[in-house]
């Protein structure tokens, strides 16, 4: 409040001379540091210590069950992780889930965004109801779908006429987990795409319609290119989120039936087996994987660049 007042005083004060101007600039910078400082310090402090600690631990033999036996082991934890088939299997599981889930979320999210944008029927109500899966607690959505798919308690096996429990084999478990992810996250994808849709000027569509373009042509040639920045941001956000998938798998079966994700492996190594050295190496590798994906999106496709070409 006082900060706002201070700012408006400096803004009102006439600044005809060069000297006064640099004072003003300096005051503005000082105020900015005071305002941004707390948020920046919290973000850096809370993430920096664990990151450094993780890197240090990943270079040690550190096992909470044998606290006396810690010692430096160089990169051998990384070697152990990268040589184990479990790691590569979990990378594969994570990629399968991410690619399928994000693809469906994109197609369905685009349809939902178009409906939210263009519908003539109950637009407000439609948007409210479509948002519900986004608001639902992830754990609740996981339980609801888990019980729905289970042969003993669920309605899905009945509807599909299944006689064996879909959650007892790999294909069924994947289907259930991926459907849960699609249901929960399509609305968020749709919201991010809706933001892009709102930027497409109606006049362009009108002009193209007058020129005889079909609906599909207009979508393909006008809407898609113009909303490309929003699409890339949406795909980036959702992909990073799916690569870190944890909640749903934990609730479903903690990674049984060959569905263990990287985050699940990370969790069980750290908190069940209490092997901090190996677990930290997994953490670092997961972080590197996420960074590579983000880098590919941002540098490769220009995600994060706005329509003006300015980085977000």
């Amino acid at each position, binding site marked *: *409040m006082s900060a*706002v*007042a201070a700012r*408006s005083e400096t803004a009102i004060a006439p600044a005809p001379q060069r000297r006064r101007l640099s004072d003003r600039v300096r005051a*503005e*910078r000082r105020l*900015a540091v005071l*305002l941004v400082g*707390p*948020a*920046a310090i*919290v*973000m*850096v402090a*809370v*993430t920096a210590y*664990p*990151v450094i600690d993780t890197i240090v*631990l990943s270079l040690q033999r550190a096992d909470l069950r044998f606290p006396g036996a810690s010692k430096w082991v160089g990169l051998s934890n990384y070697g152990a992780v990268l040589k184990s088939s479990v790691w590569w299997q979990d990378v594969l599981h994570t990629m399968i889930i991410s690619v399928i889930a994000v693809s469906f979320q994109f197609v369905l999210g685009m349809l939902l965004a178009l409906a939210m944008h263009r*519908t*003539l*029927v*109950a637009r*407000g109500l439609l948007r409210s*109801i479509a*948002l*519900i899966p986004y*608001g*639902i*607690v992830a*754990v609740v*959505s996981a*339980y*609801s*779908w888990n*019980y729905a798919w289970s042969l003993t*308690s669920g309605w899905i*096996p009945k509807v599909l006429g299944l006689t064996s429990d879909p959650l007892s084999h790999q294909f069924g478990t994947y289907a259930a987990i991926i459907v849960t992810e699609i*249901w929960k996250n399509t609305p968020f994808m749709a*919201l*991010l795409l*809706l*933001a892009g849709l*709102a930027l497409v000027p109606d006049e362009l569509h009108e002009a193209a319609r007058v020129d005889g373009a079909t609906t599909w042509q207009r979508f393909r040639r006008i809407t898609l290119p113009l909303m490309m920045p929003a699409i890339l*941001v949406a795909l980036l956000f959702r992909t*990073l989120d799916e690569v*870190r998938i*944890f909640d749903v798998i*934990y609730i479903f079966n903690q990674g049984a039936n060959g569905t263990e994700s990287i*985050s699940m492996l*990370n*969790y069980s190594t750290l*908190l069940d087996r209490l092997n*901090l050295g190996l677990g*930290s190496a997994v953490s*670092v590798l*997961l972080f590197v994987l996420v960074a590579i994906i*983000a880098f590919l999106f941002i540098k490769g496709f220009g995600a994060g660049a*706005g329509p003006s070409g300015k980085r*977000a």
Partner: protein
Amino acid sequence: MSQRARQLTGWSSAFVLIVVLSLVPVVWIVMLSLKTPATATDGAFIPHQWTLSNYSDIFKQGIFTSALRNSIGIGLISTALAVLLAAMAAYAIARLDFPGKQAILAVALAVVMFPQISLVGPLYNLWRQIGLYDTWPGLIVPYMTFALPLSIYTLSAFFREIPWELEQAAQVDGATPFQAFRKVIAPLAMPGIVTTFIIVFIICWNDFIFAISLTSTTKAETVPAAIAQFPGASQFTQPIGDIAAAAVVVTVPVMVLVLLFQRRIVAGLTAGAVKG
């Protein structure tokens, strides 16, 4: 059929389809919560025997009522702190010219992308050493941190839209700086702040990964963590009715927020995504 009538029919069918797809899992968990223990595993969508006993059950269990208290308290405090810090930062980003503006946005983006599971191990260790394990602050700190980037992006998008000249205009008309802030700027900034508060609260309310890793007892366990640890009749059976009832209770506040503030949530999330 006229073109308009055809369009209306098409959009009505789309409406029905979207409503059904969005609501079936929600209705299903409600139905499950209303089944008696004997019929909980009969697989029927609509209960054969209706009961409210699951609800009275969970409210009799200390584990659920304390979890509800923890969820509300931790969620509100984390959200308030995140929105306060983010509002200060967003004001500077939207209105002031200073070096490092891009750097702060880059840090925020990096925090968003960070795999939270990578923080869980070190935080678990550190919290145990300094006594924050299984306490409210032990969850508030990570929640606040991970809520900050989104809050900063959303709020700076909102703050950029505020016509700040009005503040000076009010002062020219004789208002003190504080009056100008309270009567002119605060009302304009409020919708953005409320929106951000709601979005951030939903995120904190929904968290699972920190809650199961950094808490262990009713002292700080939030509802998502408590649900996953409800004691079953035996080690291998889950108390389906109790879990479903708890799931419904924890879903109701979010549903109310979403239905009441749909317009704002949409505006907030899309503003942060596009203009951030």
